[in-house]
């Protein structure tokens, strides 16, 4: 193993990973009306984290994002189940979603839908599982 200098890769990563994360957030929120959604958004966020893992190392990523990805998977599943079970409080069947139009201060009239909460659960589960798999494989000596 030779000593190498990754200055170009690390500088490019600092710029591109933010662009990838912004693109994944766009994919996540655009999923209701255009192609996209929680699954591909989570995969893109995991791709940005994988790019950080490639340019730096596992310890650096642990320092800047101290997440336990297994807990993240569990939290995403909990959010999805609670969203589905919340409809039982209003005497409607399991998994019934609701939406309404609200006047938000900056965005104007926006339709807020409870399917977004379920999508947040999918997003967190996808990020958690992908990062768990990649970190577990990468750590084996």
């Amino acid at each position, binding site marked *: 193993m030779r000593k190498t200098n990754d200055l170009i890769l690390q500088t490019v990563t600092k710029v591109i990973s933010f662009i990838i994360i912004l693109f994944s957030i766009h994919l996540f929120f655009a999923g209701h009306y255009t192609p996209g959604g929680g699954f591909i958004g989570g995969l893109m966020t995991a791709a940005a984290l994988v790019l950080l893992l490639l340019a730096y190392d596992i310890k650096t990523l642990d320092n800047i994002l101290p997440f336990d990805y297994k807990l993240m998977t569990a939290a995403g599943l909990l959010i999805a189940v609670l969203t589905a079970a919340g409809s039982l409080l209003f005497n409607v069947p399991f998994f019934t979603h609701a939406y309404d139009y609200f006047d938000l201060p900056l965005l104007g009239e926006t339709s807020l839908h409870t399917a977004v909460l379920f999508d947040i659960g999918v997003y967190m589960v996808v990020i958690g599982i992908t990062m768990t798999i990649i970190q577990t494989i*990468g750590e084996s000596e």
Partner: protein
Amino acid sequence: MLNIVVSISLIAVALSMIGIVYRVIKGPTTPDRVIALDSLGISLISVIGLISVLMRTSVFLEVILLLGILAFIGTVAFSKYLEKGEIIQRERDQ
């Protein structure tokens, strides 16, 4: 008129992809194959752009950006494996 132009460009891109696939199969060293796979991904992006012009839709535009990001990450991962012998390091030794 536009359909004819786009079809001709699709045929040209397909011919260039055949040349790239020849380099992937024949390529004497591994870096040749990595560069060929990267340019295959870029040609695939142009195919998707041309097809979305042909089908008069804009729902494939996310796929273009997605393929660009994936081709970049894949090429970086292959290059790091060729350079250092491992893809994800536990701790950077410098």
